[in-house]
């Protein structure tokens, strides 16, 4: 067996090529079907030798291939990467000169190396989209673009002149049809501060749109895809925006029944807290036999204002140590509690 193996390995290039190109074919058929091998004359000899080696080893089809060094060893550091991966392709360990390991390690081991690593092949990679590659894409696309208007040189100016942003996506793929159903989705984004809304209208609009509004960035996002064509979706999106705007300015009759649970933020006036505080103060004054102090006077006094601010801060911002100590101070002042020295 050893001499046979040696003979195969020590074979010159065409020998190795032969073994590789016949590699996929099942061994017994090698000498049976002459149609498989490309070099019938050479193959018969090799086939017999191989058959002999196979018979000696049992039936396991183990081909001894001569391994050429992977392409990575011949790559220079300043090569053009976009020619290695010009399009999206799966991960080829022999073409990527990075010593990556991926996978779950065995006990007290390391993650498996990249050779033959299915995990690396399964995942999507962006090796075809490195910055130089994208630069080349942009340079190629530049011929199809028009100039950016020079008056819009900053983000604020863009927002000021064009407050509504419309986002659409075009899809290209190699296939039988150029249509892609995902292309009909249209997304409209607008900042509410650019719309002309008063307090009530803004609150009503936010309640109407629900999840489509982001409080941190003050952006309303409307995504439409219910119509089959992009133009129709865009028209529908604009129509939605118009309707929302006009409806939020109207006040219906039933809106007067808004209860405390519906309120977005805590309002101190007419709340339990105000009632309690006023009651307490009135009782204090009564016990000191001060003549009738009116509610308005009490409300306008410094201590009550202080108390009101601290309660609003507590309820709206949640509780922090800061808030609580502020509240404590204001209650002490309100109830006139002094600490004896």
């Amino acid at each position: 067996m050893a001499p046979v193996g040696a003979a195969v390995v020590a074979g010159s290039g065409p020998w190795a090529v032969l073994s590789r190109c016949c590699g996929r074919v099942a061994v017994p058929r090698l000498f049976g079907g002459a149609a498989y091998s490309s070099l019938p004359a050479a193959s018969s000899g090799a086939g017999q030798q191989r058959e002999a080696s196979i018979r000696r080893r049992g039936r396991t089809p183990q081909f001894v291939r001569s391994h050429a060094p992977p392409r990575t060893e011949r790559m220079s550091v300043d090569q053009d990467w976009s020619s290695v991966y010009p399009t999206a392709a799966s991960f080829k360990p022999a073409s990527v000169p990075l010593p990556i390991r991926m996978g779950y390690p065995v006990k007290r081991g390391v993650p498996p190396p990249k050779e033959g690593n299915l995990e690396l092949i399964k995942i999507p990679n962006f090796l075809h989209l490195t910055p130089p590659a994208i630069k080349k894409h942009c340079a190629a696309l530049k011929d199809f673009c028009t100039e950016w208007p020079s008056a819009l040189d900053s983000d604020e100016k863009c927002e000021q002149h064009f407050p509504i942003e419309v986002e659409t996506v075009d899809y290209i793929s190699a296939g039988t049809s150029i249509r892609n159903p995902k292309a009909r989705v249209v997304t409209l984004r607008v900042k509410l501060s650019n719309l002309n809304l008063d307090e009530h209208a803004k609150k009503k609009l936010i309640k109407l749109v629900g999840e489509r509004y982001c409080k941190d960035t003050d952006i309303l996002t409307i995504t439409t895809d219910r119509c089959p064509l992009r133009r129709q979706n865009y028209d529908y999106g604009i129509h939605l925006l118009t309707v929302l705007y006009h409806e939020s300015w109207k006040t219906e009759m039933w809106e007067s029944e808004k209860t405390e649970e519906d309120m977005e933020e805590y309002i101190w006036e007419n709340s339990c807290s105000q009632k309690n505080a006023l009651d307490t103060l009135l009782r204090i004054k009564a016990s000191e036999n001060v003549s009738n102090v009116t509610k308005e006077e009490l409300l306008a006094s410094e201590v009550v204002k202080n108390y009101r601010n601290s309660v609003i801060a507590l309820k709206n911002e949640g509780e922090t140590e800061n808030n609580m100590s502020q509240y404590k101070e204001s209650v002490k002042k309100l109830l006139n509690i002094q600490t004896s020295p």
Partner: protein
Amino acid sequence: QLDHGYALHTAATDCLSSVVSQDVPSLAERTKAVFYTSENDPANHADHHEGRHYSIPLEEVKAVFPHGLPHRFQQQIKTFNEACLMVRKPALELFAYLKSTNFAHPAVRYVIYGEKGTGKTMTLCHVVHYCATTFLLLTAHLWVKNCRELMQSSYNKERLDQPLQASSWLKNFKTSNERFLKEIKTQKKYVWGTRESTEEGRPLGEVVEQGLARVRNASDAVGVVLKEIKQQCHLGSFRLLVAVDGVNALWGRTTLKKEDKSPVSPEELTLVHNLRKMMMNDWSGGAVVTTLSQTGSVFKPSSAYLPQELLGKEGFDALDPFVPIPVPNYSPREFESCYRYYLDRKWLQHDK
């Protein structure tokens, strides 16, 4: 104050490093003074006592805290044969407020809050001990949590009673406030059943007896006691301290169920209903000191410790305006003091 801490630290390191047999008497006495004070009357506790332990005589413990101490502390009392409490800043703060309360004004409510295990209940006990001699005490602990029997109320058809807990509370109330019960007189006639009634002008002790004798009416007896005390408090003959542990249990949800498996809300319990009335500040002549407790409250996350989280909207609105008193963890100095105390009691042992 800085040198004090430094001295404590050096004393501690000296003690740890030196061999135990030598130098013990003088060092031990010196260190004992640091964590222990002989001032046993809470009324005289001041800032310089902060961080030190003081002991409560055992007879007073039985009289003042019949049911109030946390379980662990009761075990500690049994082990060490003495009840030692550390004087801490929140308690001293409360004393200052209580000393300067104006009893003509409506009752001020104090809420002690803090993370789990920082000593809120112990602070409350300290305050209760302070007020034991001067105030009339009204203490309530974790009523809603474990309830065995529920009965329909005899007074109001929609409410439910807790006879066992009401009767045990009445017993404890009697032991802690003996002398007041003789002085306070009822102002109305109360009819308990077809043959039993309490006339106007009888001492309140009779109402308590009635509640203890007839367990069915115990919860209503509690209600009567609370009402009478509240009404008569502003007259000035006595001062009232309402101390409630776990006040957030009064608002919120319970785990109890009625016979038809519908959940019971706290208002439907007579005891809770009456206690809520005490929490209002429409009476004068005393103070209300409460603690929040996460350990007894169900349906609340275990990391919640701030007042609004545990009280909920209802509770906060009911207690507002209150003075919140935060209780922090032990400061390094207090920790040293506690550690010294346990060493002294031989609870913590060296390897040697």
